[in-house]
C-alpha cells in the first residue's frame, strides 16, 4: 500500500507570494495533520483535520490555512510568505481511534 504522499517535493517562492501544498493520506486514514519543520528542529504542529473539519490548530498566524476534501486529502495554504516560512512541511495521517501518525516525505519550501 502507498504511504502518505505529498506534492510538490520542492518549491521556491518569493516573499509575499502564496503557496498551496497537497497531501494524500494512507488509504483508509481519515485524519490528516500538518507540521512545519525548520532546519535543525523538531516538527511543530500546524493543523489537524478529520471528517473534513478542523480539529486542532497550533500557534501559527492566520496566514496559514488548510482544508480537507471528501476523499480525505488535504491542502495547506500559506499567504504573504515570509523568509521565516522556509521549512519542510510534513503531512501525517492516522486511522480514527488510533494514536499512531504516519508521515509523508514532506514538501521543502524555500522563500527568497
Amino acid at each position, binding site marked *: 500500500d502507498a504511504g*502518505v504522499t505529498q506534492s510538490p517535493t520542492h518549491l521556491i517562492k518569493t516573499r509575499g507570494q502564496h503557496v498551496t501544498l497537497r497531501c494524500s493520506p494512507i488509504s483508509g486514514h481519515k485524519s490528516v*495533520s500538518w507540521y512545519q519543520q525548520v532546519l535543525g528542529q*523538531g516538527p511543530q504542529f500546524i493543523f489537524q483535520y478529520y471528517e473534513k473539519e478542523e480539529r486542532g490548530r497550533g500557534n501559527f498566524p492566520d496566514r496559514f490555512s488548510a482544508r480537507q476534501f471528501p476523499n480525505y486529502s488535504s491542502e495547506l495554504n500559506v499567504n504573504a510568505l515570509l523568509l521565516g516560512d522556509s521549512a519542510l512541511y510534513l503531512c501525517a495521517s492516522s486511522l480514527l*481511534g488510533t*494514536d*499512531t*501518525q*504516519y508521515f509523508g*516525505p514532506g514538501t521543502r519550501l524555500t522563500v527568497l
Partner: protein
Amino acid sequence: QQQVKQSPQSLIVQKGGISIINCAYENTAFDYFPWYQQFPGKGPALLIAIRPDVSEKKEGRFTISFNKSAKQFSLHIMDSQPGDSATYFCAASKGRTGTASKLTFGTGTRLQVTL
C-alpha cells in the same frame, strides 16, 4: 514553552555499541510517547511507541524505558549499526482521545554510528 526536552543534541557511537537518547516531558496529560527516526530529506518514520502503563517496551534492537514518576523516557538502540545514523525525535501526545492528537516533538538527536 518547550514541553518535551531531548538530550543529547548529538551522539557518536561505535558500531556494536549502545545508543541512549533521553527525553523529559512536563505535561502530565501526555499518555502516548512515540520515537521517530528521520533521514536527511525524508519524513519522520515511526520506530516504536509506549504508553505510561508499562515501564519498558522492546522491538528488535530498539527499547523504550519509561519512568512515569520522573516524567522521563529514553530510547536505547542495541548493537548500533552505521545504517542507524539518522536524527531521532521523541514526541508526546494526549492519546486515546478518539483520534491521534497533535504530537509535541523534542529537538532531536543526531546519531552517528562509526565503524
